[in-house]
């Protein structure tokens, strides 16, 4: 049982800031109820937006003063073929629910973000990436078909050949409400991941290690200590093990054992705690490199083991920040941003570094592009933190990179247009009634339609 009953859900984003409240929340029980729900919201003049599991961090899933359509009851599988690995499901189905169904049959998600508590709709709308971006590209590449409900009452079935499909993948939820999604799964022979964990003590070493690891392993990710500007960290790589067995159908994977039930006091993730954590994390592994093997759960979803960990940042919440910069400038830009963070004293608990490959996404507004990407979180200290992040945005702009909208609460309209110059072509596909707090912030669009 969950700590908070589903009917009591708060409809914030994962960073719990900004706290922008919708005027209304509706929860359709059936996909066939959605067109009427959208029409009613549109007729009232309110802006509409889908809300999945609220695992985006800033304001991409928020719609202040408008209607949020919560998809949590659209949680049905529509088709699963254990022979071919084709799966079709309603958009509120979570990746966790998909894994529980398909792993026993020898299938895995083709791409997974660092938490399995995201919905299919959210995975498409942000065109999420995982540790295998260099090998597989984004989630959208594995979507073969989807259904989109528009506020005009239409329900469209779209394939990768449709322009509206390309706008909906990475479409930030703005092209309409995705009713269901069909994906191609990835075959596996066991639920184990085998690989290696290697220490690095400088950024230059990271780049060299990462290139070698990316050439041999489909999954590569690094953790980096942001309190140390030279860039020490651990690179983890792996692949599905050929042996080790699959679970029985119906046996659920290990659930979260720990929980943060209420907002923790503000000092819980303060500088001294972060420093201690980072030192312990880096120091835990003594050897330069160790072979690793274990269940996929801690490899892909270490944070899911602590439920509601985001409450550890206290009432004011926190910012997540992820950017990508092209390889050419990667080293310098990452170094510069790490330097600023270290100087500001804003240590990040978990900073993740990886490289994106050049596999193109079908999504018009997709965030990943070839280069190096860094993701980290920072406690919300108000204006100070916003200024710090806008400064980092500036560096990202100069090096021709981009910031991830799913993890953004600060970027200015100018930055947005620089990161996503295709935004005007994208805007032609918007549903007339759909909008989000993010979209209004970065485009200056009005909140009401009247």
């Amino acid at each position, binding site marked *: *049982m969950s700590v908070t009953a589903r009917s009591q859900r708060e409809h914030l984003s994962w960073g719990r800031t900004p706290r922008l409240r919708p005027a209304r929340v509706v929860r359709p029980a059936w996909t066939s109820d959605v067109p009427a729900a959208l029409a009613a919201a549109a007729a009232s003049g309110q802006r509409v937006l889908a809300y999945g599991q609220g695992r985006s961090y800033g304001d991409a899933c928020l719609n202040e003063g408008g209607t949020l359509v919560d998809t949590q009851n659209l949680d049905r*599988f529509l088709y*699963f073929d254990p022979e071919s690995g084709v799966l079709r499901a309603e958009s509120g189905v979570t990746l966790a629910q998909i894994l529980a169904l398909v792993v026993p049959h020898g299938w895995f998600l083709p791409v997974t973000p660092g938490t399995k508590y995201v919905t299919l709709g959210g995975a498409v709308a942000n065109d999420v990436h995982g540790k295998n971006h260099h090998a597989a590209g984004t989630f959208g590449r594995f979507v073969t078909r989807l259904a989109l409900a528009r506020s005009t009452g239409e329900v469209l079935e779209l394939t990768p050949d449709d322009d509206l499909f390309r706008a909906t993948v990475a479409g930030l939820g703005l092209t309409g409400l995705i009713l269901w999604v069909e994906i191609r799964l990835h075959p596996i022979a066991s639920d184990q991941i085998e690989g290696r964990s290697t220490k690095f003590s400088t950024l230059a070493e990271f780049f060299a290690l990462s290139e070698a690891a990316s050439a041999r392993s489909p999954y590569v990710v690094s953790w980096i200590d942001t309190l140390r500007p030279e860039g020490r960290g651990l690179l983890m790589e792996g692949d599905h093990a050929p042996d080790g067995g699959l679970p029985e159908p119906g046996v659920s994977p290990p659930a979260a054992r720990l929980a943060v039930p209420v907002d923790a006091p503000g000092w819980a993730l303060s500088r001294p705690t972060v420093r201690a954590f980072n030192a312990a994390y880096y120091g835990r592994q003594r050897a330069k490199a160790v072979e690793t093997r274990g269940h996929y759960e801690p490899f892909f979803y270490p944070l899911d083991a602590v439920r509601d960990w985001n409450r550890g940042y206290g009432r004011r919440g926190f910012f997540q920040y992820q950017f990508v910069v092209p390889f050419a400038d990667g080293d310098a830009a990452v170094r510069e941003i790490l330097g600023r963070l270290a100087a500001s004293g804003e240590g990040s608990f978990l900073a993740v570094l990886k490289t994106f490959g050049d596999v193109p996404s079908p999504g018009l507004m997709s965030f990943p592009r070839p280069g190096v990407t860094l993701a980290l979180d920072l406690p919300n200290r108000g204006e100070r933190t916003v200024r710090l992040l806008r400064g980092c945005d500036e560096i990202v702009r100069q090096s021709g990179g981009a910031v991830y909208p799913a993890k953004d609460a600060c970027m200015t309209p100018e930055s947005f247009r620089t990161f996503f110059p295709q935004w005007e072509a994208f805007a032609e596909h918007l549903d007339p009634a759909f909008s989000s707090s993010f979209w209004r912030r970065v485009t200056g669009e009005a909140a009401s339609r009247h």
Partner: protein
Amino acid sequence: MTVLIVGATSAIAHQTARLFAAEGAALALAARNPDKLAAAAADLRARGAEAVHELAYDALDDDAHQRVVTEATALLGGIDAALVAHGVLPPAETVHTDADAALQSFTVNATSVIAVMTHLANTMEQQGHGTLAVISSVAGDRGRPSNYVYGAAKAAVTAFASGLRARLHGTGVEVVTIKPGPVDTPMIVGVHEPGLLAADPEGVGARIHRAMRRGEGVVYTPGYWRPVMAAVRSIPDRLFKRLDW
């Protein structure tokens, strides 16, 4: 294992059906709305049900009760377990003053349930085995001013199931009465006071599955409703009538 679910588009019943599907049971689903029924059936197929049959069932159709049991028996080759789940929570404003509306809701919540359970009991008694479960409600334990028409129908179901259980004792047929407290399903949207905590349907559905597996008698879910309702029943009428809830 073969299972018939009457009112299979119910959010609670669907959670129970998922657990039977994951065990590889063959299912017959009866409901009145074919689009919703198709979505529910697809989900259960994907989750591993050996077979899923879709049957039309409208509780307001007098002929439907016998027909649905006959069809399910033929399709499944016998019914090992059945869950009767359909119901409506009519708005107080209407049913408190409109006798036709009150009786129509009573037909859905009680009369049709008695009819379909009678046919199921006959089939199961003849088979010599079966688990016959029905979703009643804590609302049937005492009539409250806000929902006594609904409560009266659930009281009828509870009493009916109690007698049926005793009558079938020793025949191999178990009768299971489920009494949920408020559950977060479409039924209570707009009717149930929003501030009040409603249980998640997953937990309630799982509890029903367990009760059916074990052939339990009367089950309150979540379990704390048993002592709560014992306390509510013991409030003297001269006090009870002053309560506005």
